[in-house]
């Protein structure tokens, strides 16, 4: 019988070789199970058999695994509404080299133990919200409308004197390029942190072994930095000190970091009198390790001079409790053209360099602060990509630490994640080959579900600039007409960031008019930001007693309040969805908090949700800077803020748009789940009830019920208290 079967088996084998194998494999494929997807769970929230309270109302944070030394518990007697800045009233100037005998120890601003998204100072959690009139406060600049050596004190005072006051500024230390108000090299000298040597014979040069010294009309570099930070201090500002600014200035070749420029020398070997010309052979090695170029040894020698910057800065500022350090400004951004093309460094390589620099900061803090510094300052970094952001937290990118004894008071990880602009979208040639995309602005970072769960502050510390025109300035549309340099796009970005879980917003802007006079726009943007800081950080959104603590607020799922439709969404609409009638897109974010009975914390008194909603679009590129809709023909300002679409009249009739022309602004209806609610419509411009609406309207929904906004111009805050 076996013998008789051979022809059949042979035929089957031949057939299989000729194409049957996929057939046989397919029989298994046909039986693949259908994978259930998570949205099936979401739709079940409306199931009446399920608990009405979503146990995940406030999005949970990942477990904090950083240094306990950088966490601060609320002080004894802390109560809601206490202002951390009240302690700042006692701030006086410091000189870390000449501290008074009663100085004690420095305890810099750190993270709130109850919720490390938030900052904490003096045992009181806080937000940091400010405005920086650019960051060259320690530089001699021609730009009177930017913070500079001539105006820094008045710039910082403007933050303090705004009502309500702001509490944060940002200051830069070392630019990668030479910079001055003219190309004249001599005028660039004060703006670099190294000594400028003018020998009797031969050309002048920067000596990278020595700090910048005083010259005609200016003080030594780090003496100026000290004065600037002290001015911020006496004006009650926290200061984010950015150590490296690799791509700023006029010309890399005219700066102190370029080998080709030939303007930098250093002792070789160190400590000897033998000076050799030095520098990075490519600007891009400023922000990543040279692991393989023929000039790797030369480029890695330059780390010693980057460490000099860190050492000199920390030596100057270690004793300041109102300071934290940012490693670098936009290290992932494109640098100078090489071979005709501007490139950008692999974000993971940049993250590794930043982690290495954090190690150097910690070493310097231990060296200069010693026992007088209770713990290390907070350290921030600013990625421009999701890859770079995640790499900053990846243990695989921990620095090399030769000779270092781990010290939990001086941790080597990152605390504060900064973003620039709302969204980033720029394709770049990668230094070394290939391409990559800068894909993460501040809003991208805070909306990233992985990053948003990290127990770290997420901040914005640069965006489009108020008071200037062009691609770098702000732009919005008022009744269809472009307005440049105005404040409302920044209000939208700041509110959205902070109601998405961000805890710091530092508006990067030129807040002084070109003639140096502080103009109305400069005051208006600070007032707007001050109101946000006050309403959220100090007034807890005016929620009723028992008012949640600041650290109780967290990004909220709205499914506990709003009717969930079959798709898992709500009638708040899809984030970013187009609105034809108003030529805008719909953006919203939600912050929630649970109020508990102080004498019985297990008892929930109410839950509150704050829904911030604005109607804007991404910024179109400069050549499409108009009322383009939708999508700017796919040509965006790569590093842009929002283009707010403000309407105080009805938009023009457009027959292709549902509801056109509609009201003179925005008016929407939302569906609430059963429950008793206190409804308030807040105007973000004033943080007061929207004109014509009651401060609180109580409604009881036995089934689903609807609420309708007042007609609003482009943004609104809905405050719901559900008891």
């Amino acid at each position, binding site marked *: 019988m076996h013998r008789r079967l051979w022809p059949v088996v042979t035929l089957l084998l031949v057939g299989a070789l000729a194409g049957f194998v996929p057939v046989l494999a397919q029989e298994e494929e046909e039986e693949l199970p259908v994978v259930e997807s998570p949205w099936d769970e979401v739709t079940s929230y409306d199931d009446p058999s399920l608990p009405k309270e979503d146990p995940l109302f406030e999005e949970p944070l990942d477990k904090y695994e950083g240094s306990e030394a950088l966490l601060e518990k609320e002080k004894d007697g802390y109560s809601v509404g206490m202002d951390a800045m009240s302690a700042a009233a006692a701030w006086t100037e410091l000189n870390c080299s000449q501290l008074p005998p009663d100085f004690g120890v420095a305890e810099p601003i750190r993270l709130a133990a109850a919720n490390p998204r938030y900052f904490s100072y003096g045992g009181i959690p806080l937000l940091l919200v400010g405005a920086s009139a650019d960051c060259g406060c320690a530089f001699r600049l021609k730009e009177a409308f930017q913070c500079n050596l001539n105006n820094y004190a008045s710039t910082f005072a403007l933050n303090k004197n705004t009502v309500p006051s702001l509490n944060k500024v940002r200051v830069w230390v070392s630019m990668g390029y030479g910079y001055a108000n003219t190309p004249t090299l001599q005028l660039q000298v004060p703006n670099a942190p190294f000594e400028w040597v003018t020998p009797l014979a031969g050309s002048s040069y920067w000596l990278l072994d020595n700090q910048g010294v005083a010259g005609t009309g200016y003080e030594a570099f780090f003496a100026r930095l000290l004065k600037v930070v002290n001015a911020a201090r006496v004006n009650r500002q926290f200061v984010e000190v950015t150590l490296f600014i690799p791509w700023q200035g006029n010309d890399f070749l005219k700066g102190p970091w370029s080998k080709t420029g030939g303007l930098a020398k250093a002792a070789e070997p160190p400590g000897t009198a033998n000076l050799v010309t030095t520098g990075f052979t490519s600007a891009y090695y400023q922000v990543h390790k040279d692991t393989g170029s023929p000039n790797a040894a030369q480029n890695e020698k330059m780390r010693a001079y980057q460490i000099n910057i860190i050492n000199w800065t920390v030596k100057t500022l270690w004793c300041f409790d109102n300071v934290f350090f940012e490693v670098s400004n936009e290290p992932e951004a494109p640098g100078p053209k090489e071979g005709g093309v501007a490139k950008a460094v692999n974000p993971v390589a940049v993250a590794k360099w930043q982690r290495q620099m954090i190690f150097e900061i910690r070493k310097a803090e231990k060296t200069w602060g010693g026992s007088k510094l209770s713990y290390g300052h907070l350290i921030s970094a600013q990625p421009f990509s999701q*890859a770079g952001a995640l790499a900053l937290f990846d243990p695989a990118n921990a620095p090399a630490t030769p000779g270092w004894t781990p010290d939990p008071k001086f941790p080597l990880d990152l605390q504060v994640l900064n973003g620039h602009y709302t969204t980033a979208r720029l394709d770049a040639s990668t230094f070394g080959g290939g391409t990559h*995309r800068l894909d993460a602005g501040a809003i991208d970072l805070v909306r990233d579900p992985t990053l948003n769960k990290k127990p770290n502050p997420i901040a914005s510390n640069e965006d489009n600039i108020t008071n200037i025109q062009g691609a770098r300035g702000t732009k919005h549309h008022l009744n269809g007409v472009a307005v440049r340099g105005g404040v409302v796009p920044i209000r939208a970005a700041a509110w959205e960031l902070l109601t998405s879980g961000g805890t710091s917003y530092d508006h990067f802007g030129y807040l002084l008019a070109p003639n140096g006079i502080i103009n109305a726009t400069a005051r208006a943007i600070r007032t707007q930001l001050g109101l946000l800081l006050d309403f959220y950080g100090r007034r807890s959104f005016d929620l009723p007693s028992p008012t949640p603590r600041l650290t109780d607020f967290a990004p909220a799922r709205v499914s506990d309040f709003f009717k969930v439709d079959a798709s898992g969404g709500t009638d708040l609409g899809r984030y970013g969805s187009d609105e034809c009638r108003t030529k805008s897109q719909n953006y919203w974010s939600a912050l929630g908090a649970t109020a508990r009975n102080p004498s019985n914390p297990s008892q929930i008194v109410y839950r509150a949700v704050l829904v911030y909603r604005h109607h804007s679009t991404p910024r179109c590129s400069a050549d499409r800077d108009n009322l383009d809709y939708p999508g700017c023909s796919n040509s965006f300002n790569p590093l842009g803020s929002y283009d707010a679409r403000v309407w105080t009249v009805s938009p023009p009739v457009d027959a292709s748009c549902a509801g056109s022309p509609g009201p003179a602004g925005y008016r929407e209806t939302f569906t609430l789940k059963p429950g008793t609610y206190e409804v308030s419509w807040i105007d973000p411009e004033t943080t007061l009830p929207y004109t014509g609406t009651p401060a609180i309207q109580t409604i009881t929904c036995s089934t689903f019920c609807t609420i309708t906004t007042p007609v609003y111009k482009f943004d609104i805050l809905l405050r719901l208290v559900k008891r």
Partner: protein
Amino acid sequence: MIQNRQLLLLLLGLFCARLTSAQDFGRPLTQEQVDCEERQLMRLQHRAVFQQKGSQLFFWRASPTGGAYRGLAVAAQLTGDNLTRGTWERDEVQLPFDLILRQEDDFLDPRRPRLPQATLVRRGAAGNLFANPRDFQAIDVQIDLAPVVPNPFEPRMPLHITNNPAAGAGQADRAGRSLATDDLLSACHAEVTEFDLKVFSLMARTVRPSECLLENHGCGPGPSPLRVVLFRGTEPLTYRMNLVDYGLNCYQDDPCYYLESTTAFLFHLQVNARGDLTGGDVQALGWCAQEGQLGCHSVLNPDFALFVMPPLRPGLDKQGPPEFRRSAELQIYFEGFEGNILHDTINWADLLRDTAWNGGLVP
């Protein structure tokens, strides 16, 4: 009884052998042939632009001989909250086209040099034509025949078609030496079967990349336009796909610059005895280790999801969560990221269950 069973097996074997011989899934190709075709299609696609947010422009070879290409322009709207799958929707407008190249035309006129000629013509009956398109419905395809194309957004010798039904909007032709200098007229191999053509056409209607529906990322201001080239792999029933993200980048005060990047995929198909597509898989190939390497991702962070979905066609232009649930899905964030999903199986039998596609694959 046993004899009957043997007879049945014998007949089955003979039947299958006959089917196999009749079904032409092509012959194996050498890596050099595949590389040649990849380079050729990449040169071609570089010249093309469909400038719309989220647009997709597919190209593939149309015949065993050289100089014949087909394509599909897709104005694709893949929308929804990337974290809420129940909100996902696919809505699109399609325009298939032929691109026919000839070595030399107009050979009678003694005053004109004999130049290669290109004809771009839409197949309107299989596409969506709109006299007054709304929003994303307008399709506008251009292919630049200039000798060098540093920036296809600024064409100097464009072929141009649209999906406007007006006369002349659906075809264009012109001569261009670049067709020869870019070696777009030759055939890297002759293995382009009827089955291949159906697979290419099918892939162009089922494979959809989306930046905006990449979970844990989103797409910022909006998705980039994409070009896709489809070609054979080395083995029969294997197909390669390169997805090219392209755009202008206008950074600070510098002039805008053009940049494109590639992400590479490999599809394995499975067929049944009738030649119907039944199953298979899709995998993202690896990241390039050096400049100029083929069959790899040239971009560090592709940042998109790739869906293989039930096909859309004119008359069937919208899908929702049920179709996404049936789809194969890759998620490609950045090199080395643990959240990448770089391989998935494809249940073609399910994806094509309501179509005539499977019935049409047997020549």
